[in-house]
């Protein structure tokens, strides 16, 4: 005990950061080498399968790489930011960015709201068949998108679809949901909410159940009504859960791809094409340079939006 406490202070002065590793040579001679040998398998795998692909794709985004260059990936021309300029000035990519923004700005808050509502209902309101409802709400998450797409196409059929049939009972003439430029995106948002709120619901439910009952009880004794208790006690305590769900949902929605891919192929008139889907198309045409540049643009947008979410929703000190 005493020996070690004496030994620590000088080292602390030499390396103020407590996590800084000891310089090589200071420890026992075999230790550093052993550490390196033990780390080699991971380091090699990490270099080969993480660093290298990232480096190569970043490199690709600054070159005019096309599909036919795959066999000789380095005999291509370096064109600086040309691909980024081309992507940003492409009217279809701009349209795709606007569509993605629409999808995220409308879709994420609605998904969170529906997920929270379902979680509160399961936590407080629904006591009978709770497990059945929980399973029912979560099932869309684990169902194949292909099967979902077939069913939703039937639901959204203009003439004999379920949705328009129900609307016609109330004398409403429903639109051609997927074929109309105004309604195609709301249709996809509706489908995405239905498909994704289950995940948020399960996590919110766990968060709600972690809110201490004693706090609720104390507030109730002080005369707070149900809404006040939810808004001033439950909701602030849910903040970390909310951050997690909103970050993961937003990241998923920023890369939204499957819905337009299976339902509309980006149409009608590019009204549902997303950034990810347009990037995918560019890869399909073999324009690897432009496509990787677009991927990095999406990456930057996701990073920025996630940073903003952390700033807004982080726990207040």
């Amino acid at each position: 005990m005493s020996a070690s406490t004496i030994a620590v202070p000088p080292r602390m002065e030499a390396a103020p950061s407590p996590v800084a590793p000891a310089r090589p040579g200071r420890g026992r001679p075999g230790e550093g080498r052993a550490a390196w040998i033990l780390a080699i398998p991971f380091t090699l795998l990490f270099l080969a399968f993480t660093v290298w692909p990232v480096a190569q794709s970043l490199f690709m985004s600054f070159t005019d790489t096309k599909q036919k260059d795959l066999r000789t990936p380095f005999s291509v021309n370096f064109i600086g930011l040309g691909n980024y300029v081309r992507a940003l000035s492409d009217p279809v990519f701009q349209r795709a960015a606007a569509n993605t923004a629409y999808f995220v700005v409308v879709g994420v808050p609605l998904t969170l709201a529906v997920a929270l509502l379902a979680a509160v209902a399961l936590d407080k309101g629904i006591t009978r068949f709770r497990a059945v409802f929980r399973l029912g709400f979560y099932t869309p998450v684990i169902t194949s998108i292909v099967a979902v797409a077939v069913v939703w196409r039937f639901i959204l059929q203009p003439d004999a679809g379920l949705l328009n049939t129900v609307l016609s009972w109330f004398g409403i003439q429903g639109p051609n949901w997927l074929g109309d430029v105004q309604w195609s995106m709301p249709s996809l948002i509706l489908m995405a909410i239905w498909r994704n709120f289950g995940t948020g619901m399960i996590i919110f439910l766990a968060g709600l159940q972690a809110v201490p009952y004693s706090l609720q009880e104390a507030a109730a004794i002080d005369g707070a009504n149900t809404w006040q208790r939810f808004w001033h006690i439950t909701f602030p305590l849910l903040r970390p859960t909310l951050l997690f769900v909103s970050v993961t949902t937003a990241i998923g929605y920023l890369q939204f791809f499957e819905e337009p891919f299976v339902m509309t192929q980006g149409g009608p008139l590019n009204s549902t094409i997303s950034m990810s889907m347009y990037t995918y198309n560019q890869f399909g045409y073999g324009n690897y340079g432009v496509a990787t540049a677009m991927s990095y643009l999406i990456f930057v947008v996701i990073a920025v939006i996630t940073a903003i979410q952390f700033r807004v929703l982080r726990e207040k000190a």
Partner: protein
Amino acid sequence: MRTPAIAAITVAAALAITGCGRPAENPSAAPQTAATVAGGPATGELTIWAMGAEGQKLPDLLKDFEAANPGVKVTVTAIPWGAAHDKFTTAITAQKTPDMAMIGTTWMGEFAGLGALDPTPASIDKGVFFPGAWGTTEVGGTSYGIPWYVETRLVYYRTDLAKKAGITTPPTDWDGLKAMAKAMQDKAGSKWGINLQPGGTGSWQTVMPFAWSNGAQLNNGDAWTFDTPQMSEAVKYYQSFFTDGLTNKTPAQGATQEPTFVDGSEPMFISGPWMMSAVEKVGGKGFADKYSVFPMPVKQKSASFVGGSNFGVFKTTKNRDAAWKLVQWLAKPEVQVKWYQMSTDLPSVTSAWQDPALTADTKLATFGKQLETAVAPPSFATWEQVAARFDAEIEKVAKTGADVDASLKSVQAEAQSIGTGG
């Protein structure tokens, strides 16, 4: 994550400086000539990739080839269409291609551009094939492989409803087609006159026959020609079906033509030979007598789209002689007829159409007639990308009534910036 990012930038910068850069010469620029193929029966082993239903049925056909050439062993790998393109490009990059394969006509430019395909030897006579189909094998003046089977598009129409509309002989020109669609709507009581694709993937296959019929071309050498008066006139004609209310602008997502054709609400459409069995299946017994087909209407000439699949040999093959012998065997008229009977794929060899198996059906014979003038798009590696832009503009023209000349101008500008992939 900062370290990998820095490492990545360093690597990228280092590569950029130490530079790569493209080699100056272009190996595929000059027409290539093929070595001759040795005589005698085929021997050795051959591996083949084929897609979809063809991949399933090809081994049965090739039993005959193996019987005629006892020293040869053929292995066919069936590949789903959806995965095929990626599988081919990966294999070409890794130089792990099969000896030969069925190749989609629109992939020819790309694969030949990658230097993967062996030029067709002179022993294969191009004269036996439909000229439009043979055109799909040619890239930059060199032919790679043969057209294996073909398909083309005709106008399908309901004979019973046409009679009601007072039409007994199908129209032959543009005005006649439009008048017929109008009569179907006015006199026969159909909801729509004709079903035409309002843009979207592959709609160029219905638009281009009208353009070709009017003397328009997609390209002149290495330059795209979307902004010609002939093209404009054809697209305006196509647009008029939508603006005159003869065609549904907003069909349901994923809808096919069979149900509305059978119930009579869309009594005409333009499509390929596979629709015959499709509408007869939906229409039930006796429906075969209620419809027929007629050739694409004439402006300057009757033109249609020719599709299908080609058969090619890869340069990496170790058994080139046997591979080309198999290709030659596939092009024999009797083998083509047998293949039609097994798969209903239409023969690409003109003389095979003399066989009673094909002449017996008058609808089928009309397809054979149309194939003589059917045209294929140029085999440029960038065609699919240009076509997608063209499809997007057709959608604007059909659905929103956008100005045709402005749309074609924008297709032309985009096509020129995409290039021809040379």
